[in-house]
């Protein structure tokens, strides 16, 4: 009796399925198939019969089904690609982490549960957008307090004194506040620029000459940017500083439409790189081994050289999961996950992965295009997608030695709880924005 009732419920559910949910379900199914096959191959290779080792896969499946059902119920007209893409990338990440550092996989899987729940709450939280817009200065001050507390009480999970102290720890849990600061900064910039948007547009329409922005518009932003960059450089977290700066430039460009902002932004980046080259030994090392890693292949450039070797070993179709040797790369599971992926899934795999990232970011821009009459929403969506885009480009380029290496994580894939959590919150915000206004 009960069975037939649930059967009926399922059937009506199927009938009522919107096209969005159908697409989402199909994509999750295919992505899940890929992850399950690779996970099974990994388990077969380890020839383990211990059920507990299958836990990450089970958790992933649970998160995918739970997340999908919740979104299906509460966010009917969401973008159907964002959630499956994000789940696919994070599931792939889970497989790679389990393969590279099995003891971290369970931890990452638990972070995945937290992240999916937080993503859903972000997407469903009432009046969230209005609050973000209205209380931007409170938000910014909160973020800066978080950052200052990192400088004062920051630790490193490995416990080394020389490593960058970027984490806040409480009772065995570590969180990286700079990750949260990224989203806070984007919300602040978007809200601020949205307020100035009519002014910027009017200036543009009135005189078609490319005037520099008035200090009233640009002053507070430069100050705030300087603050963020100084703190980031002070913490020796170069990757975050670069991401901050580039997102700032892109948002300012999108809001104002002045091409010279992009040009001067590029110029300033090169200038900052030169200055940092002479000021910081870390930067000098990074740039030296970027220009020529081979003279120190056994020394300071060991990591990047091993990463290049991994790419070469991967070839077109890769070695297969668990059958390559990406563990030659030091700390491969966090920053160099991309190299491991290249070795075990080859060119084919990384093209598919980059395609997924690209699509995710394009969907973000599409969300932004939906809100042409609401500058805050449009700029916020642009900023969030730019955040994902720049961060993934920086680390993929760094691992491939296309650009100097900056220590940022690959969103969704790298090991790291705070990175995963914030990336899922970004997905949640994009999902919310893709639904349009509901206040």
């Amino acid at each position: 009796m009960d069975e037939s009732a649930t059967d009926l419920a399922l059937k009506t559910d199927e009938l009522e399925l919107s096209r969005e949910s159908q697409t989402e379900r199909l994509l999750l199914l295919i992505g899940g198939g890929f992850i399950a096959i690779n996970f099974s191959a990994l388990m077969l290779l380890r020839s383990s019969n211990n059920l507990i080792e299958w836990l990450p896969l089970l958790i992933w499946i649970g998160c995918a089904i739970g997340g999908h059902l919740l979104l299906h119920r509460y966010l009917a007209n969401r973008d159907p690609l964002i959630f499956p893409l994000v789940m696919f990338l994070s599931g792939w990440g889970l497989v790679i982490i389990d393969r590279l550092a099995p003891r971290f996989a369970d931890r990452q899987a638990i972070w995945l549960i937290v992240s999916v729940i937080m993503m859903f709450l972000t997407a469903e939280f009432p009046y969230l957008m209005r609050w973000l817009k209205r209380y931007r200065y409170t938000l910014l001050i909160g973020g800066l307090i978080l950052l200052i507390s990192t400088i004062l009480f920051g630790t490193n999970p490995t416990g080394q004194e020389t490593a960058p102290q970027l984490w806040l720890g409480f009772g065995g849990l570590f969180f990286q506040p700079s990750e949260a600061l990224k989203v806070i900064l984007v919300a602040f910039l978007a809200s601020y620029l949205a307020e100035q948007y009519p002014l910027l547009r009017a200036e543009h329409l009135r005189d078609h000459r490319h005037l520099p922005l008035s200090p009233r518009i640009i002053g507070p932003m430069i100050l705030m940017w300087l603050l963020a960059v100084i703190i980031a450089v002070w913490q020796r977290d170069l990757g975050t500083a670069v991401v901050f700066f580039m997102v700032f430039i892109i948002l300012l460009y999108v809001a104002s439409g002045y091409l010279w902002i992009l040009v001067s932004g590029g110029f300033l980046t090169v200038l900052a790189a030169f200055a940092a080259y002479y000021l910081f030994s870390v930067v000098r090392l990074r740039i030296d081994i970027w220009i020529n890693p081979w003279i120190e292949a056994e020394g300071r450039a060991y990591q990047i050289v091993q990463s290049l070797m991994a790419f070469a070993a991967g070839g077109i179709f890769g070695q297969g999961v668990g059958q390559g040797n990406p563990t030659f790369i030091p700390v491969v599971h966090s920053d160099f996950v991309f190299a491991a992926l290249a070795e075990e899934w080859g060119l084919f795999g990384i093209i598919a992965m980059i395609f997924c990232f690209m699509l995710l970011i394009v969907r973000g821009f599409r969300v932004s295009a939906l809100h042409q009459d609401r500058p805050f929403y449009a700029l916020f969506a642009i900023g969030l997608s730019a955040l994902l885009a720049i961060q993934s480009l920086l680390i993929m380029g760094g691992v491939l030695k296309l650009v100097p290496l900056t220590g940022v994580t690959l969103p969704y894939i790298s090991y790291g709880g705070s990175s995963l959590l914030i990336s899922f919150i970004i997905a949640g915000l994009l999902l919310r924005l893709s639904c349009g206004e509901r206040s």
Partner: protein
Amino acid sequence: MDLAIILFGLRVLSALILLLLVLVLIWVIWRDYRATMSQITASRRAHGSLIVMQEIEGAYVLTGDIYPLLPLTSIGRSPTNTIRIEDTFASSEHALITRRNGQWWLEDRRSRNGTTLNGIAITKPVVITNGDMIGIGHIRYRVNLET
């Protein structure tokens, strides 16, 4: 069966699924693109016309101008409007005609001199039908809907 063969099979399978995923994603964005394009073309199609008349000594006279009625038609003095009026009586963004759920709505965009419907000034969005007269300044637009 040999472990190596099973592993190879799984590798091939995983590559095929990855390919399938990419193809399905491409198909989804293609479908999306098609849907958006058809939506855009539908929104550009005229659904009727606005026939311009002018008040001369108490009588309405056809000026000969006919504008297409689009699902989003804006009227005003600014060149960004769908219908631009060269009349100092009109505000730069004067009125807006939109199609929502199969109905046509007229709203005044807080213009200085207001918009009238059949001679009555409107304060909030109203539904308009065939034969209605929209008044802006000395100009009248007769709504001519396609049925």
